[in-house]
């Protein structure tokens, strides 16, 4: 058993590895960790490299891969990349859910037969409140896309990123996701993390390395401690949660991650689900 597999089995390292497929996005959300926007530098990993990294991750002992960005589905080959990743490990992909129309929606159909969960952001049952955070017409596009994806057999989760949890708002949001066909088990509520654009908008909770699950996260800029690591503020990449600049071969950042995890108490694997 590899050192990574042993660390995962013992609970010192989560079994999921993240990849930032790209940094650009068709939205510019007010709390975005990476200051993503249509004109943000793309910093793509590329489908072939993602597949190669996932193969090495599986060989090292990782059990699941997460894909995030930016908006992953701005990458032209993302549905096919996800199919390829799912042949290696279970996959979760985070998306804003606004791009699933026409041909792009049709190309999602093969994911219904694979171990791929598509996690879509939806922050409020109130279109105005939701769109204030996420951009014009976001609510309409998301509530339109979710049932269409479910009809294709795609496994959909909804993630709500909330500054404050208001019980009334939350119960209305839960009623909405159930109406859309997403059960309670597939709805997660997560806090805003005070990094990236959230800093400028005075939002969210601070999170240091010890507060975040040590999920190895690979980007075009390097390997990070967590999917909350490769944030951007003022146009500059944050390096406080950088592990290594080297991303391939994956054993290099994985070994560095193991050394860091050995210095951490096992409890950092986290009670809070940030993702």
């Amino acid at each position, binding site marked *: 058993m590899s050192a990574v597999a042993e660390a995962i089995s013992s609970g010192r390292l989560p079994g999921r590895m993240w990849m930032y497929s790209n940094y650009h996005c068709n939205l510019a959300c007010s709390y975005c960790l990476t200051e993503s926007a249509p004109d943000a530098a793309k910093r793509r990993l590329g489908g072939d490299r993602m597949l190669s990294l996932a193969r090495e991750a599986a060989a090292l002992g990782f059990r699941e891969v997460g894909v995030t960005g930016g908006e992953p589905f701005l990458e032209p080959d993302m549905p096919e990349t996800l199919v390829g990743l799912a042949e290696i490990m279970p996959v979760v992909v985070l998306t804003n859910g606004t791009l699933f129309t026409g041909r792009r929606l049709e190309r999602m159909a093969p994911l219904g037969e694979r171990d791929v969960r598509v996690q879509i952001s939806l922050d409020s049952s109130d279109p105005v409140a939701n769109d204030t955070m996420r951009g014009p017409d976001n609510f309409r596009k998301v509530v339109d896309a979710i049932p269409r994806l479910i009809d294709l057999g795609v496994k959909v989760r909804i993630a709500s990123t909330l500054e404050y949890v208001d019980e009334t708002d939350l119960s209305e949001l839960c009623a909405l996701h159930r109406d859309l066909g997403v059960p309670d088990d597939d709805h997660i509520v997560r806090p805003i993390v005070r990094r990236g654009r959230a800093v400028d908008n005075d939002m969210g909770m601070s999170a240091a390395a010890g507060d975040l699950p040590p999920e190895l996260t690979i980007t075009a800029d390097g390997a990070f401690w967590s999917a909350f690591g490769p944030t951007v503020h003022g146009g500059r990449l944050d390096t*406080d949660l950088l592990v290594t600049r080297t991303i391939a071969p994956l054993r290099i950042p994985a070994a560095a991650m193991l050394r860091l995890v050995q210095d951490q108490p096992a409890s950092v694997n986290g009670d809070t689900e940030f993702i």
Partner: protein
Amino acid sequence: MSRVAMIEKPQAPLLARRFFERGDPGPIVTALAHVPELLETTAPFLGSIYGPSHLSPRLKEIVVLRTSGLLGCHYCIETHTVVALDSGLSREETLALRNEATIEGRFTDERELALLAWVDCVALGPGCPDEKMVSELKARFSDAEVVEITMVCAATVMLNRFCTTLALPTSPATLARLSEEGLS
């Protein structure tokens, strides 16, 4: 002004944090912190090169300051002028090592002259030292010392290129000391 941003403590990568625990680690570390896996290996390497060893501090600083003077690295010249003074070299000797005065008349010890000839050859290259230079050095230094002298010189060439290319800034404390000594 340096050609890369200096990583400050709040942005220190996880593997680099220990280098920031005792205050400002200096520009070589704060530049290398951009690539923590390089810092992790380079910092101890430089520590073993420039830290205490069986080569005396005076001889080591002759190697470092002479190399830096020949290669014209401002950061290394300024920083190691102070180290050289603290290692017992005179103001006149440092001026010669900085390539601002002649060696002749300032260094007379045959052992140090053989060392300086060797350093000039290694630092300026290209090619190997001739047999006369080799025999002059080996008559006065052990093989272990020859290896260390050559490694200190070669590592300083590397560091000279790094610091000069990135225009790393000399610390205010070092600049103040040089001013006091009239060696700015």
